[in-house]
């Protein structure tokens, strides 16, 4: 898998017409001969293609993505010491935890809310409640996140001034107590988290609803009902357990979408996470950072999928006890 990702990212690097040094110059007339020379050195563009790929692979394995062209040439991934012994933090090192925080809160909320919505919708199939939840799901699927973000920013931030609309901290947050700082951070996170979880919420609610409907029509549910269990017991202990098991796999699958979606949410709300870093790097054609984030994003997805697979195997007693493969 990793080799495949390295191949594709290598391929993208070579998409640019001519070589990337000339296209960079075309976009950015200010690109000096010096920075083009650096780019050439970084990716060994004067060597044959196979050698270039080998060297790129080596850099990826060593997680060495070089230094940024912009942002005072800070290291892309991890901190290094400069000649005077000062520690310079890496760009991804600084921004990744923020993106992870937003997405982890997002995933947690998506699952709690969509399990509730999906279950209600399935249990009360074809009722008014079910129809309005389904309608909400369709709208949430179709609504462009950046548009909703704009409207919410305008409504809660400009008209009513309920919530802060950009950044992660208030200007004076350092004067708050620790609890105050925590709530300040929380307040800043409400809008971006809600925007980034919207489409995931719709998808997973629909998934839970369909899964529940499937399970509710199976024989063991009829058995449970006919032996006189109350409905609550049937739904929560028998049906729900079986319906939400496949969700663990869906967590893994939804990670690339969430990470990708953070680009829009973070750049609108000016949150210094990986998505905004990526967007800024694309605008400035800061190739080392772009390649670094692309690789790290994919590695994160792989880790997420792996955790999801292990989680599934752990949660399903049939797999855990080796009864089925």
């Amino acid at each position, binding site marked *: 898998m990793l080799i495949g990702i390295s191949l594709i990212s290598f391929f993208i690097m070579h998409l640019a017409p001519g070589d*990337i040094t000339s296209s960079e110059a075309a976009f950015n007339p200010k690109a000096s001969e010096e920075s083009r020379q650096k780019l050439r050195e970084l990716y060994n563009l004067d060597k044959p293609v196979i050698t270039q790929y080998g060297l790129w692979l080596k850099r990826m394995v060593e997680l060495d993505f070089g230094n940024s062209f912009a942002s005072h040439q800070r290291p892309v991934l991890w901190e290094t010491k400069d000649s005077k012994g000062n520690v310079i933090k890496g760009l991804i090192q600084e921004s990744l935890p923020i993106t992870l925080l937003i997405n982890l809160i997002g995933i947690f909320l998506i699952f709690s809310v969509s399990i509730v919505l999906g279950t209600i919708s399935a249990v009360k199939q074809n009722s008014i409640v079910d129809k309005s939840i389904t309608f909400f799901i*369709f709208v949430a699927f*179709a*609504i*462009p996140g950046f*548009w909703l973000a704009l409207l919410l920013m*305008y409504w809660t931030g400009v008209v009513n001034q309920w919530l802060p609309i950009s950044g992660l901290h208030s200007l004076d947050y350092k004067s708050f107590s620790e609890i105050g700082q925590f709530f300040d951070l929380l307040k800043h996170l409400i809008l971006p988290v809600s925007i980034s979880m919207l489409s995931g919420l719709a998808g997973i609610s629909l998934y839970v609803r369909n899964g529940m409907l499937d399970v509710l029509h199976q024989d063991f549910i009829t058995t449970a009902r006919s032996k006189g269990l109350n409905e609550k017991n049937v739904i929560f202990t028998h049906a729900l357990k079986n319906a939400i098991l496949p969700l663990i796999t869906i967590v893994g699958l939804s990670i690339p979408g969430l990470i990708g979606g953070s680009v829009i949410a973070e750049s609108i709300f000016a949150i210094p996470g990986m998505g905004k870093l990526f967007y800024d790097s694309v605008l400035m054609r800061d*190739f080392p950072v772009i*390649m670094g984030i692309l690789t790290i994003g*994919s590695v994160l997805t792989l880790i997420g999928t792996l955790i999801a697979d292990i989680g599934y195997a752990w949660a399903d007693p049939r797999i855990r006890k080796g009864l089925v493969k």
Partner: protein
Amino acid sequence: MNLFKGNLLAVIGFIIISIILFVAIFAALLSPYDPNYIDINSILLPPSYDHLMGTDGLGRDVLSRMLYGARISLFVGFVAVGIATLIGIFLGSIAGFYGGWIDSIIMRLVDIMLSIPSFFLILAVIAFLTPSIWNIMIVIGLTSWMGVTRLVRAEFLSLRQRDFVLASIVMGSSNKKVITKHLLPNSLTPIIVSSVLGIASAVLIESGLSFLGLGVQAPTASWGNILTDGKEYIQFAWWLSLFPGLAILVTVLGYNLLGEGLRDVLDPKNK
């Protein structure tokens, strides 16, 4: 319309899409002004009889820009999904029909592509190329063929075991004939459904890219970049933000309803 009998949502989707297609095709006749005509005497006018959706920061008529924007959105959607579907059918057919190591390689490729966050991939490619409407269509197409590939492969795998396909193979039909005459026509339903749903997501991606300034470039109007202008003036000119967002919402909703409706209607299990 008999096709959609009893499926209200699909009918609504069908009507929405028909209206938007009509508007997009006849944009030149319907729009009251030239979408790129700059009139400094009518900057940021609210909606009125003269300008039904108001004017933007350069005095351009928003309704006209919206109508031409519909063209761009649908055009990008169709072409991008066309590319993705063709690639998907091609790779999926090969993988599903031949199996073995070809299948393993193609499915591995699908897994790899799926593990790269697609919005990152699209942005990265755009960073290395120039953002333009053609590049966007190609990039969206090249990054969204994985679903169709899996779908076609799965259909082929199950169809290949069926008697009529076995009969055709035994009677000595060429592989090409078996694929194009028997396997593909019988897997069309899921392909159509996924293409319709694919257009919805392509429209969303295009508008997102244009909103970020990395999609369709000014002065060409697209719903995404009208919204970018709207962001600048959100405190004084709500109409610049409201209409393009609504248009995207309704279009995507229309395609999703139509796609889900088609799935129900065309699936014989539901009859």
